[in-house]
Structures are given as C-alpha cells and as structure tokens.
C-alpha cells in the first residue's frame, strides 16, 4: 500500500501559507506593514495602529505576538456584521474560513446545514452565499481581527492566521433584527467557530438571541460583544445578560473609558476604541448619514487609495479582544471558552477605579499577559449589592457578591468614610473561606456611625499573594 504523505495531501489554498501571520518561521517577528509601523499618517501624533500597540501587540521583541508559536492553529472566528469586502488588498483569501463540507457552486447543500453553497459564511440579509459588505462596518471589524501581514500594504491584524467566517446579518446601513443575529450565532456554533465577534447592539433583550447565545455557549463558543456607544447603562442595552460572553468597553488614549462607551456591572473588559485604524470596504463610508453623528463624508478615509478607515466605538474595541481570544485558542486549542474568557479577564490591567468597575470591568486587555495566563487562574471580588438585615447583634448591612480565587487565601472587607476615602478600617475579621453563594459578609450597623457616605472595599487575596479589589458606594439616609 502506498502511503501518501499528509503534508502533501492537505494543500488547498493558492496563496502561500506563511508569511501572512505570526506562525511558522516568522513566529516572533512583528509585522512590517506600513500603517502598522507608521505614525502620523493623518496628522496625528501617535502610531497609526496605536490601539493594537496599547494592548501589547507592538513591534518589540516582547510583543504579545512573541507568545505565538510555530504550532499555532487556525482559529475559526465568526464575524456577525455587515459582511466583508473580500477583495480588499489587506484581506488574504486564505484567511477566510472555507466550509469543508461544501462543494462550491453546485447548487447543493452538501453538508446539509440548511445553507446551499455556503463556502465562506452566509448572507442572512439577502439569503445567499455572498456576504458582501455594502456598509463597511464588517470589513473594518474583519481588518482589526485578521488583516494580512507583511503584504507590503496597509495594516496588520491581531490574528492574521484566524479563519474568518463571514456572517452578514446586518444590511447595507448596518441595521437588522434580532432574529437574523440569532440565526447567525447558531450558524457559527454549528459550523465550528470558536469565537464570535458581535459588534452589534440595540435596545432590549430577546428570547431568540438569548437562546442562540446559550446554544453557542453550550457548543464551546466564546462570544465577544461590544458594549455599545450610547453612554448609557448596559442594563438598558441588548446582550447585557449574555452569560459567559465577554462584553467589551472602549478605552481612550489615556486608558480611560470613552465617553460614549456603555457601562455597568455587565462590562467585562476594555480595549482601545478611539481612532482605531482598519480597512474600508469599497463604496462605503460607514459613519456617513448616521443620525446624530456629525461627520463629513470621506473624513475618515486613510491613504491615497482610500482603502483604509479610522473610526471610534466599542465596535472596534471588541474585535481587538476577539483577536486576542483567537490567538489564545490558536496556541491552546483544547481550552474551553470559559477558560479563555477567564484568561482574558483575569490578566487585564486594572484601569480606572481600583478593581472591577462599571466602566472598564476587569480592566484594559493585556494581550501578552492573557496569552501567558494559566487557564485555571482567577481572583474574583465582586460586590453586587447590599441589604439591611436584622443580625444577631442588631441591624447589619449584608454584603452581597463573590469573593473567590482559584487558590483562595482570604478576603477582607473595609470601610472608608466619604466618597473618596484615604483611610480604611476593617469592621469585621478577614474572611477565610471563599464566598460563592452570593453572600460575602455582614457588617454591624454600628460600623457606619460618623458619616452618611461610605465606600466598601472588598479585597480577595490569592494564595500566591495577588489580589483583586472591588468597591461599592454606600449612602445612608
């Protein structure tokens, strides 16, 4: 029997497999794309792709990309958006997901998934297999995640080795309805996506989307969601209740939450979302004509050929996190979605208010730390609320939340008077067992004498000495 070498048998794509990403012999070499190494292209005084650099994807030897090894696999990343201009110069065709069960152009649903000739994804808006982008938003998102490297032009994506599953669920103007998003989520989960990027939102939650999210989660898919750009609480916004998803806020040049970024306890992590640079789909100008947005047509184009675009929004913060998740999956494909989520969150750099806060969640994405994180490591400190109870010794304030760690050492609750206390005191003894049932501790009412305003500080300490904080403002009337 003749043995055919596997290496020879798996060839498929016409383009060379290499040099478009951080794998192979180029493992640790940062990209050289002109807009990645460039600065001031549109007159600004910061690097063109500052957003990637800020989270560790830079051109130093210690870049987050240095964590990628030669054995990294291709992660299938589903982008549920307005589609893709797959003819863009910075989109390598071998970075597009190809449905292995489908024979192109035979008019048959070969894999029986309900979609005929779905080679690279699906156009849920028009009901066909050509998810072309007439808006530009989807192409922008795709560029952040997977723009080609070292092709002599343009930008660098976070994970150019990712395989982009293009699911067009939003129309020419970036609008859709929940049912189409839900169908796209289900498609992604059924067809092998490990990560879904959902830079989409709207008011209210729907059962159909919730079930789709649950379905995807059960299939091990990590859903990364933009928190939205209305400057309002996530509780009023869609997807705030998505379990085990990663909800991404947008940070600015100073690592603060951008003014437009939606906020709330649902926010998990932040990534740069101001003046992000990526691809422009032809015949598009995605910010043009959006009600309430002052924008002069063409102002966001970058480059003489207008093939690049700069924009702000949580829409563009989310794909940075998606790209990082894709890289983690590529190096450790056996990880679960929950583990990757944990690695992203618990390695984040704390910004804003100490600890987990409502503006930036666990903090700013730290891609290098995330790629190096232990999958089972976590430290949780959350105060979800308080309630007044009648304790054994009189009235008390019951603190609700979680204090836990992968190797729990202790937790401490402290009180500080005023809005921005400088001094703290511990009204009760340290907590020596993880609080995982929703109740952390009870503080005697007498501890609150002397001020009408207090800040509760919860500090959970891991056995390795690392800590995480959570704070809670308490006003007494």
């Amino acid at each position: 029997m003749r043995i055919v070498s596997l290496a020879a048998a798996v060839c498929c794509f016409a383009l060379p497999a290499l040099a478009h990403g951080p794998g192979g012999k180029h493992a640790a070499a940062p990209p050289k794309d002109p807009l990645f190494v460039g600065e001031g292209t549109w007159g600004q005084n910061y690097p063109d792709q500052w957003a990637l650099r800020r989270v560790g994807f830079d051109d130093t030897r210690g870049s987050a990309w240095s964590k990628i090894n030669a054995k990294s696999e291709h992660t299938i990343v589903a982008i549920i958006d307005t589609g893709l201009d797959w003819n863009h110069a910075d989109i390598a065709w071998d970075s597009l997901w190809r449905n292995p069960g489908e024979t192109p152009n035979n008019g048959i649903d070969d894999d029986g998934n309900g979609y005929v000739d779905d080679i690279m994804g699906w156009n849920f808006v028009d009901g066909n297999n050509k998810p072309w982008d007439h808006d530009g938003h989807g192409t922008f998102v795709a560029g952040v995640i997977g723009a080609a490297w070292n092709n002599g032009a343009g930008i660098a994506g976070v994970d150019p080795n990712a395989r982009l599953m293009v699911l067009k669920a939003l129309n020419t103007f970036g609008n859709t309805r929940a049912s189409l998003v839900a169908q796209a989520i289900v498609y992604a989960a059924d067809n092998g996506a490990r990560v879904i990027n959902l830079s989409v939102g709207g008011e209210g939650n729907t059962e159909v989307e919730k079930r789709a999210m649950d379905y995807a989660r059960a299939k091990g898919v990590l859903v990364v969601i933009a928190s939205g750009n209305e400057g309002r609480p996530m509780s009023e916004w869609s997807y705030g209740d998505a379990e085990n998803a990663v909800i991404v806020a947008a940070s600015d040049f100073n690592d603060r939450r951008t003014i437009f970024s939606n906020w709330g306890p649902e926010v998990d992590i932040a990534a740069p979302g101001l003046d992000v640079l990526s691809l422009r789909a032809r015949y598009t100008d995605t910010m043009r004509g959006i009600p309430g947005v002052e924008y002069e047509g063409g102002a966001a184009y970058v480059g003489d050929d207008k093939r690049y675009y700069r924009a702000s929004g949580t829409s563009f913060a989310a794909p940075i996190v998606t790209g990082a998740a894709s890289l983690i999956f590529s190096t450790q494909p056996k990880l679960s979605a929950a583990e990757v989520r944990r690695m992203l969150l618990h390695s984040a750099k704390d910004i804003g208010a100490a600890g987990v806060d409502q503006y930036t969640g666990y903090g700013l994405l730290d891609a290098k730390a995330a790629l190096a994180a232990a999958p089972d490591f976590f430290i949780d400190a959350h105060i979800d609320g308080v309630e007044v109870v009648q304790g054994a010794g009189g009235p008390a304030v019951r603190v609700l939340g979680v204090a836990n760690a992968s190797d729990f050492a202790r937790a401490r609750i402290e009180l500080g008077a005023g809005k921005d206390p400088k001094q703290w005191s511990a009204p009760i003894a340290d907590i020596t067992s993880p609080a995982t049932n929703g109740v952390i501790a009870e503080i005697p009412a007498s501890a609150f004498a002397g001020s009408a305003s207090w800040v509760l500080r919860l500090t959970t300490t891991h056995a390795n000495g690392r800590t995480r904080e959570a704070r809670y403002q308490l006003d007494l009337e």
Partner: protein
Amino acid sequence: MRCSLATALVLSVSFLAPQFAQAQMLTKFEKEGPCKTRITVPIEIYGDGATDDFAFEIRKNVRDQWAGPSAEDAAAIGSSLGLETDWLADEDNAEWYKKYLEKNEGAIDPEVNQDGTQELVDKAGQIRGIYADYVREFSADPACIQGECCAVRIVTDVKVRKADDDPTPGYYQIEIVDDPNFRSYVWAGHKAREGVENPDEDNPDDWQTTPGTNGGSNGKWANNSSRNAAAHEVGHLMGLMDQYKDIKNADGKTIGSFQQHGHRHDIMAQSEAFPYRDAIAQLMEIGGIECDEETCCPGFEYNRFGQNYGVTVLAVGDAIAACNKPALRRLRSQLVDQRRNLMLASRIPAHRKIPLAVAIDEKIARIDEALKKVCDRPVTGTTPPAVTIGEDYTPIPVESDTDSTTWCEYGTDSPGGGTLIPSGGAPGTTPGSTPGTTPGSTPGTTPGSTPGTTPGSTPGSTPGATPGTTPGSTPGTTPGGRPTISGGVPIGSTPKDEDDPEETTPGETDDPTDDTPEIPTTVYVKAKASVLKGANGTKTSEIGGQRIKLIPDATKNPALPTDPGAQKDQTGADDDPAQCTTDDDGECQIVIADTRTTLGLGLKWDVSARYDYEVETPQSSGATVIGDEPLSDADKDTIVDELTGNGLDEDDIEFNNYRLGDKWVTGIGYGLKYDYGDDWSLDLGLKYKIEPDLCRTIQPGPPLGSSPQNYSAIGGEIPGAVISLPGHMTQENAQ
C-alpha cells in the same frame, strides 16, 4: 414680617427685614468631585407634630421632589389617567389628543367640555409637558438632578428635638405643628444674588434667601407632606426665592396666587411640580460651586432641553456632499440660532463662548461655501428636451438599498425600491408624475411588466427584454430579495446630433473628446413613504431620515474566492459611496460623479437630463415565536386574522421557520402600516409567546474630535446604593 395665613396655598417664605440678612446659611454645599455636588440641608424639627415618622417624611419628600419626576412617576401618572403607554411621546398636545380620541372610542370632544374630559386632557397635557421639558435632563440616578451637567444631590439631614433639649447648633430649627392645613413658612432674610448689580424687586431670580439661625425658630411647617410643602420650604433653606405671587383682595387678604412667568411647574411656584433647571443653576451659584463643564459635559454637547446655549449635533457632512439645499439651509438657520443664544447666555464664561462660537462659525462657513460654490454651480450642457420614457430611454439595472436609520424600520421581505427617471424638468419637479411609482406597488416582483412606464407596475422586471440590461443579472429579482430598482438612461437624443452614436450602452465609456453633454452627476432622490411608528413607539416624519445607497455593478454579484478564475477585483476600491439621507421632505441628492461608471451609467449621454429616483421606503416589522415545533397553520391563521384585522394586507404577512438548537423559531414578517409598531404583543391564546423582533444595529461611535451626542446617563464608576439604616448617626449627629 410674616405672610398672612391662607388656605389656598401651603407654601411660603416669610422675609425678615434686610438688616437680618447676616443670618448664617446652614445649608452645606459640597463639591464631591469634578462633576458631583452635594447639598445638605440640616433640619431639626420640634413641636407637637415633630415625630420620627414625619422626619422620615421630610427626607423622603425632599428626595422624591428634588430628584425630578422619574420615568416610573410619569408612567404611573399615565396609567392613572388611563392613557396608553406611549403617552409621553414627543408630540404636541393636539396630535396627542387626536390619537387619544382614536384610541378611546366614544371619548368626548374636549371643546364640548363634557364629562370632565377637558380636565383630563389638560391634566395629561400638563404632566406631559413637565415630563417632556424636564425629566429628560435629569440624571438616571433618582437621587440626583443635573446642573450644567454636574450631578447635584440634594439631601436633608433631619433630626427630631425633644421639648426639653436645646437646639442643635448648625441645624435649622423648624417647628412642626399638628395641623395638616397650616400654611408652612420659613423665616429668612434676602439679598441680591451675587453679580446682580441692580436687582429688580419684582424678579425673584435677582434675589436669594438668607435663612439661618438667629436664636429662635427658622420656620413653622404643617405636619403634612402630601402637597410637597417640605420640598418647597427646603428650597428656601437652600436660598431659593418663591416663584409665585399672592393675589390679594381689596382688604389685603390673600385669595389665591399665580406662578411667575415661565415657572408654571416650578416647585418654588406651586405644590405639584418639580425643580427647574434654573433653580439648580442658582443653587450652584449660591453655594459657590463651579462645575468644570469640559470635564463633566461631553464635548460641546450640552443638554439640549432647557438650555439656552446647547450646541446641537448637526450632521452637515451628508447635506454638503449631496448639496441638499433644504437641509443645508435648515442647518444653517439652526446654527445661527445657536450662535445667537450662545452669545446671549449669561452663565457661560467668555473664554468658553469663544471656541464654541468659532466652531459654529466654521460650520456656517462650510455650509455657505457648499451653497455658493458647489450646489449653485451652473449646470453645463443644453437645456434638457422633453423625453418619453420607454422611447428615449431604456432601463438599466441600478440597484439600491434603503432603510430608515432613525427608526430601524425596514425588512428583508418588503424591500424599498424606486425608479431612476430621466426628466427634463428642473430639480424639484413634482413627484408622482413619474411612472411606476404608484404607492402600494412592489418594485421588482412582477415579471413581465414594462419597466418604469405603467403606473402601479413594477419597474425593471422584464428579464433580458431590454437592451442594456446587465448580462446574467435579472433586474428586480436579486437573489434573496434585495431591493432592486431599475431606471432609465437615454438611448437617443431629442434632438440628436447626426454625428453622435446611435445608441449609448450603459456602462460604456464614451469618447471624452466628443461634444456629447456629460451625464448629470446628481441623482435627485425622493422618498415616497415610510413608517410612522418607530422602535420606541414615537411618531416621526414619514419620509425623512431615510438613507439611500446605489449599489455599484462590481458589488452586486461579486465572485467568491472559490469561483473558477476568481481574482481580486479592484474596481472602485477608492470610490465614494453613492448615498444620501433624506431630509424632512423626503428628498436628498446623490452625487455620482465618481461612481457613475461603476453604477453602470456610462460617462456621457447625448441628452442632459435630470434623473429622479423615487424610493418607496420599506414598511415592515417582525416578530418571532419559539416553540418545540414550528407554528401550526391554525396558529398562523390566528395571527393573520389579528394582523389583517388591524388593517394589514394578508399578502404582506409572511412566515418562515428555522431551527435553534432543539427548538423551532417561526419568524413573522408583516408589512408595517401606520400604528402597528414592533412593540405589539399579542395574546391570542396561542401556546407560545410572540416576541417582537427587535432592531439591532452596528456600533460605530462618534468620530474623533466631533461633537458627540448627548450622553446623558453618565453613571458612577463604581456601583452603589442608598440605604436606610436604623439608628444611623452621621458625623454631625455625633457632635
């Protein structure tokens, strides 16, 4: 000095003579952060009615009233009045009442004033007015209100003093009488507000109260908070003057009162009202609190409600690009108004006025330039001759997409469509005279009709029947139901030069050196109709805010990477989109100078004509049903009956099924007519719940450096709560 008692009012401030104005203001004004202010009013109550319960009532009354009306308050009011849920919609009262009558069959015409209906309408209108004018500017935090973008929290520290105890220093001393009808008052001096050089005796805004301890009582209140007396009197304790005046008879007896102009719903003017924004601004001044507006307020955008210098976000880019002159003129007018108001604003310092004015001036200049140099540029070429559709022009497939970004009203099954129509008329020719645009027709669905000629027919739907149709494509039948719009291009001149080619095929590039006039580079778009009801139930313009984009050939049916011989087509990679957004009249213009070839329009035609592009805006909405099996035919019939019973055509209702894990989802699409929005919920006795198919949109934020939208709900970085703790002692209490 003290006001005489009157039963008509329970609110008053009684002034000490000015020489007592040195009384100490005990109210504490604290800036807690760059955008947070706390005003604490220390009150010690004593007397027959001074109880712990009433102390609580005072705290609660002040908190509730000074936080402004909450959405829940408003909803409760609406409910109590028997009004529908969207009674707060931003409509004028006449419109609202008309709607109310439609919804309440048999209601009495208010003009007849029978049966108390007028009172109901007045009441609703009054409260709607309060809500519409004020509640939206208040913080989401129920304990806070907004003052110049700073969150202002007003709290009372109320304690009860026993009869034998001495007054607690630092607390206003208020006697509570055990008489709910007693007319409450506080003693206070008054002085001109800082910065007011020539105060007008009759203008309360020129003055402030100076309450404070003077060794005795600071006021006497009824033990009744039902009419918000405590909230009003606390206003005086913070320094605010009354905004009402008593009406006295010839004997000097108070027989009523009236509110100062502009203070109809002011808590300082009447009992059932809320704090006014100006009052909050006054409190900030009295307390010497300055809010760093640049830090606290997002960019230039101040709250647009109730402020006299807000710089409204104006999307001028599209209007300039499309030379949408009505929109440009309207924007210019708004900007001029803004600039005038800005310069008149008294509370904004000069150093902040200047950059705002410069920014506005720049916008005005850009609009002026567009109006003069671009939009009014003379059209070259000959005067358009009369043409006959179908004889002088032949259809060309020009696809378009459209939807309303304002209200997310669109659908995949009821696409918009229109007709690109050459005409010899001047811009602004009356729409409706153009063929193929009869309302109710569905473009692109009726095979065999003549494109763009027969009223009510479907334009551009005869596959392959006409010259110039793109090979391989079927106009009007794009897979998946994309809105497909056909148009006309001239195939012959009228009159025609003998040297000119017989026919110009769309998509060809003519010899640029010939004398053939250029194709007009602007398509005039007229939206015909749109939905009336948006995602939030608010009625809006029928045809405004509609975005229309023409779809270039290169992207209509692009080759997939897996197609044989597929290459990366770079056609139009640097071209602008051909799109515009309609103004309130449903009109806009698309500049196609850069894209006409890729749109299949060629470079030159032998007739210079104007091209109207009528768009039938989409009207569809949807719902979903999740169940263990697809919706049964019987259930579908029930839904169809419900929808048709509300005026929808059966043909406009569609169902589709798909799997979601182990469940089935049935999607319901229905042509949306008026008043049947996506907030409906049917209770038809079905096994499964019908859920609105909510709108979703992409999430681009504002461009860097732009004036952002008004992000009103800036909340706390850390979570928090306000609790009532039995026996709690504050620092002041503990002294």
